[in-house]
């Protein structure tokens, strides 16, 4: 695995978050005087499993919107390629707003835990999101999805779309690289009025719009942006807004 390539940034984050997690557990136990089982600060058999999900933006010029991180069973999906996007996915992919997607996930019986990222993730930057799940869900079929908008695009998103997690020992980590998708809900005009990200500063920068005017109302792998530097009339994007696969790296660590 490629942790060595990234030692300066993320490994420090792992350790720091792990310390915070243990501190929180200690505090919780101290506040429960009627809990006789007070020797399990480092107990692998506590009632919950905690995962740290570190999201890294691998692009040159595409900030990520606040991510949606969802742990779920093997059959739940935020989207299916070749099928129309839900309005919740469209809302994330066109405007970077993850609220509807997370609200729908919260209501789904196959979803075991979910969280929003803390904010946008700049190109090259990483962020760690911590999620605690009931332990019963750490079993075959446990899967993770991570979704974020590429904000200097019409309706592009980077997504890990329901990858299966084998049972992880404490401290064991898994690394994934993620593809980018086109939600198929908005024409890829690349104009100053239809892209919500900073590349369209000064324009209308529209986010979500319920109209579906892409060539096909279906989620596909993203073909990338064309940009004005590559001859697209009307595009506000420049060469640095192009990207390639993979667009995102996701590391999942079980910390407790």
């Amino acid at each position, binding site marked *: 695995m490629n942790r060595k390539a990234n030692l300066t940034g993320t490994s420090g984050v792992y350790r720091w978050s792990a310390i915070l997690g243990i501190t929180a557990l200690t505090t919780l136990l101290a506040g429960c005087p009627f809990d006789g089982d007070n020797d399990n600060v480092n107990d692998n058999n506590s009632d919950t499993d905690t995962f740290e999900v570190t999201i890294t933006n691998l692009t040159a010029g595409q900030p990520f919107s606040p991510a949606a991180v969802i742990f779920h069973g093997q059959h739940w999906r935020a989207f299916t*390629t*070749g099928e129309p996007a839900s309005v919740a996915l469209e809302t994330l992919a066109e405007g970077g707003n993850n609220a509807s997607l997370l609200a729908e996930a919260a209501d789904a019986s196959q979803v075991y835990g979910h969280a929003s990222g803390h904010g946008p993730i700049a190109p090259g930057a990483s962020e760690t999101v911590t999620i605690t799940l009931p332990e019963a869900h750490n079993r075959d079929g446990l899967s993770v999805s991570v979704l974020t908008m590429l904000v200097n695009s019409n309706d592009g998103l980077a997504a890990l779309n329901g990858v299966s997690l084998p049972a992880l020992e404490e401290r064991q980590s898994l690394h994934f690289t993620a593809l980018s998708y086109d939600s198929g809900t908005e024409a890829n005009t690349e104009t100053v009025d239809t892209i919500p990200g900073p590349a369209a500063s000064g324009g209308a920068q529209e986010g979500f719009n319920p109209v579906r005017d892409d060539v096909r109302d279906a989620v596909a*792998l993203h073909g990338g942006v064309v940009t004005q530097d590559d001859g697209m009339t009307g595009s506000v994007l420049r060469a640095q807004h192009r990207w390639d696969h993979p667009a995102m790296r996701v590391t999942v660590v079980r910390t407790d």
Partner: protein
Amino acid sequence: MKLTRAVTTGLAILGLTPALVQAADLTVTIENLTRGVYFTPLAVAAHPEGSQLFQTGQPASTQIQAMAEGGDISGLAGQLSSLGATQANNPAGGLLAPGASATASLNTDGTANTQLSVTAMLLPTNDGFVALNAIDIPTTPGTYSFYANAYDAGTEGNDEVRGSGSPGEAGFPVPPPLEPVVGTGATGITAAAEGFVHIHRGVLGDSDNGAGPSDIDSGLHRWLNPVARITVTVN
């Protein structure tokens, strides 16, 4: 270890069970993940160890050339037949549209066909093709998913204009579903055949449907690899 490695490289392995039976009966589902690229009739075959469709860095065979330039898989089918391959070609019954899927069934019982290959031409391209090239067919029953990349056969210059599907002739064929979305009157991009199979660099295209350097639409026909998901279910 194998599971961990597969997961980290993006292959999803689902439903692993510890049984040790020889693969005999499998289905292969090919999903076109692109936004605007069509696949020509797919060759889907199980074949013996030691055989493969092509080797990157080496010149394409005439059979790969015919497939990649014009979508003709008859040469490949004949070659695979002479190897004793198990074939289920053209599962889509023609073109596989963007976003669409097709499923082929293969039964390798009583054969030595342990390798799986899937390939088809990509339209609109001059000699681009999608391929899964001689992967080991899993022997444990379960569902396995693989991503397949686009390659360039290296047999034709990528001039990106309408033209011929015959080997050695310039341009690409335009079957009916592509007619409205492929431009006309392009001057063409100056490009020579590369001479060897390699990962496709993608198409340039342009945003002028009636002129410009390319008949390909830059906003519709570009892709970033991979271009297909291939799901193998071993029964």
